[in-house]
C-alpha cells in the first residue's frame, strides 16, 4: 500500500506537470497526427505497388503506432531524467523512500496514459481519413503497454548516459530513427540487406509491429510476439530502474 501511494504521488505530480505544458501537449499529440497526415493521407499507398508504401494502408498501421510507442516515451523519459538531474530532484528523491523502480513505474503509468490516448487518436484519424481496413481489438492494449515499458526503460538508460538534455535528444534520435526502419514497420525485411534482417530480429519494436499487424490487419494470433515483447519490457524496465535515480 505504501509503495502504491508513493507511485501514485509521483504519477500525479508528473501527470499534472504534463497537463500544464501546452506546447508539450500540442506536440505530443500533434506529432503522430502530423505523421498520419503526411504518410497516411498525403503520400498514401502507391497504387502501382512500387515505392515505400506498396501495401494497403492497414498494413502500415502498426508502423504509425510504433512511431508513437517508440519516440514519445524515449524522448520524454530521457529528457525527464535529465531535467530531474539538472534540478537536483534525484538528489532529493534519493533521501526519500521512493525507489528507482517506483519512480520509473510512475513515469511508465503517465507515458502509458499519454500513448494510449495518442494511439486512440491516430487510429481514429486513420479510420476517418483513409480507407484503412483494420480490426480493433483489446489485444492492442497489452502491446502498447509493453511497448511503452520497453522504451521508458531505454529512455531512462539514455537519460543516465547522456550528460545533458541536448545529449538526451541527440541520443534518442540516434536510437529511434534506425529502429523505425529496422523493425518491420514501414520497411519490410525483404527490402533490407541480410544484415538488416538480423537486426530486425533483435529489435523489440519488431515484435510490437508484427504483433499489432497480426491483431489489426492479419487477424492472426500474436501471443508469441507479445511474450517476446513482454520479455524485452521486463529487461528494459529493470535496466532503466537501475539507471535512475543516481544523483552522483
Amino acid at each position, binding site marked *: 500500500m505504501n509503495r502504491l501511494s508513493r507511485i501514485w*504521488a509521483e504519477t500525479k505530480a508528473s501527470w*499534472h506537470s504534463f497537463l500544464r505544458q501546452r506546447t508539450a501537449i500540442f506536440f505530443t499529440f500533434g506529432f503522430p497526427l502530423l505523421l498520419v497526415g503526411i504518410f497516411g493521407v498525403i503520400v498514401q499507398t502507391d497504387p502501382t505497388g512500387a515505392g515505400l508504401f506498396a501495401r494497403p494502408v492497414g498494413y502500415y498501421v502498426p508502423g504509425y503506432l510504433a512511431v508513437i510507442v517508440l519516440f514519445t516515451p524515449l524522448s520524454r523519459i530521457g529528457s525527464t531524467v535529465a531535467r530531474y538531474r539538472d534540478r537536483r530532484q534525484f538528489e532529493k528523491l534519493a*533521501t526519500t523512500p*521512493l525507489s528507482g523502480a517506483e519512480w520509473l513505474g510512475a513515469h511508465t503509468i503517465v507515458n502509458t496514459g499519454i500513448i494510449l490516448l495518442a494511439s486512440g487518436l491516430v487510429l481514429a484519424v486513420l479510420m476517418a481519413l483513409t480507407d484503412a481496413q483494420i480490426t480493433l481489438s483489446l489485444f492492442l492494449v497489452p502491446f502498447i503497454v509493453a511497448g511503452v515499458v520497453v522504451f521508458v526503460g531505454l529512455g531512462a538508460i539514455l537519460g543516465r548516459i547522456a550528460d545533458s538534455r541536448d545529449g538526451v535528444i541527440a541520443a534518442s534520435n540516434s536510437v529511434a530513427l534506425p529502429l523505425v526502419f529496422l523493425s518491420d514497420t514501414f520497411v519490410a525485411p525483404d527490402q533490407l540487406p541480410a544484415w538488416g534482417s538480423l537486426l530486425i530480429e533483435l529489435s523489440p519494436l519488431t515484435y510490437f509491429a508484427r504483433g499489432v499487424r497480426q491483431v489489426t490487419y492479419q487477424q492472426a494470433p500474436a501471443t508469441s510476439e507479445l511474450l517476446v515483447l513482454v520479455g524485452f519490457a521486463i529487461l528494459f524496465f529493470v535496466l532503466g530502474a537501475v539507471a535512475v535515480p543516481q544523483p552522483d
Partner: protein
Amino acid sequence: MTPAVSADGVSKDYGDTVALSDVSISVSSGEIFVLVGPNGAGKTTLVRALTGTIEPDEGLVSVLETPVNDTDPSRIGLLPQSFAPHDRLTASELLEYYAGLYDQSLAVSKVLSDVGLTAASETRYVNLSGGQKRRVCVGSALINDPEVLFLDEPTTGIDPVGRRSVWSLLDALSDNGATIVLTTHDMAEAATLGDRVALLDDGELVESGSPGSLIDQYGGDSVLRIETEETLSEAQIGQFEGDVEQSPSGLQIRNVQPDTIGQFVTQLNELEVRYGSITWTEPSLEDAYLQLTGNDSLGSATGYRKSSAYSDP
C-alpha cells in the same frame, strides 16, 4: 552521548580535484551545526556524503546511529543546493507530492504556514518569487518531520524578513530536538543559528567550535577609530589608556569595550581635540572566517566589520 550525525575520515575526489580530505565531524542530537567555507571548499560534497547521495572514497558516515545508507529515509530531510522541484505544480501541490512519498507526514497547511507561504499556496512554483521558491524547497525538507535535517544554503535568495522567519523556524525545530546540519555563506546566519560552526577550505576541516569561541580565538580585537581633524602630540596620545595608534585619519585604539567609549569622548573634549566621527567595531564571525581562510587583509582594508558609529554633535 551518541552523535546524531558523524563522519569519520571522509575523503572524496573528483578526478584530480580533492573535494574532501579526511574530514571528521560529529553532530549531537538537537544541535545546529553550520558548515561555512569559500565556494568549492567541499561543503556540498560533505552534505552529500552525510546524506548518502554520494559514496565517499574513504571514511565512514553514520546518521542516527546507523550507516547512512541503512538509515530510514523517513527520519531525515534534505534540501539540496540549487534544488528546483516541478515548475508547474503549486506550492501546495508540491508539498502534497513530497508528503505522498512518506508513510507519515506533517499537514501540508502547517508546513505552508511554517514557511510563510499560506497566501501563495495556490501559486505555481514557476510564478513564485525567488525567496518564495526557496521557502517551498525548505518546506519540502520539513514535510516528513525529520529527526535530522540537512539544508544546503537554505536561505539563498530569501529577503531579510523571510530569512529571519526561516531562522526562527529552524531554531524552533532544534528546540524540539531536531538535529540540523546546514551550509551557508552568510556569517550572520551562521553566528545566529549555529551551536557550532565548522570551516571547510580546500576540502579540509580547518576549524570548528561555537561562534563565540571562533570569534574569541580568530576574530581579532575590537577597535575604536576616532577621526581627528588634527595630528595629536605624543603627550596628548599618552593621556589615553590602552593600545593607541595614530594614523593619517586619526586615532585607532584596540580592545576598547563599548562602555568605556564615553571616557575617550570626554578626554578628547578635555584636550580640545576636534574630531569628526567615532566608530567602534567588534570582531565578528566574518573576521574569524577571513582570518582562518587567510583573507583577513581584505576585511581590514575595507573596514567591513560589524560597527557602531558616533558622530561629533
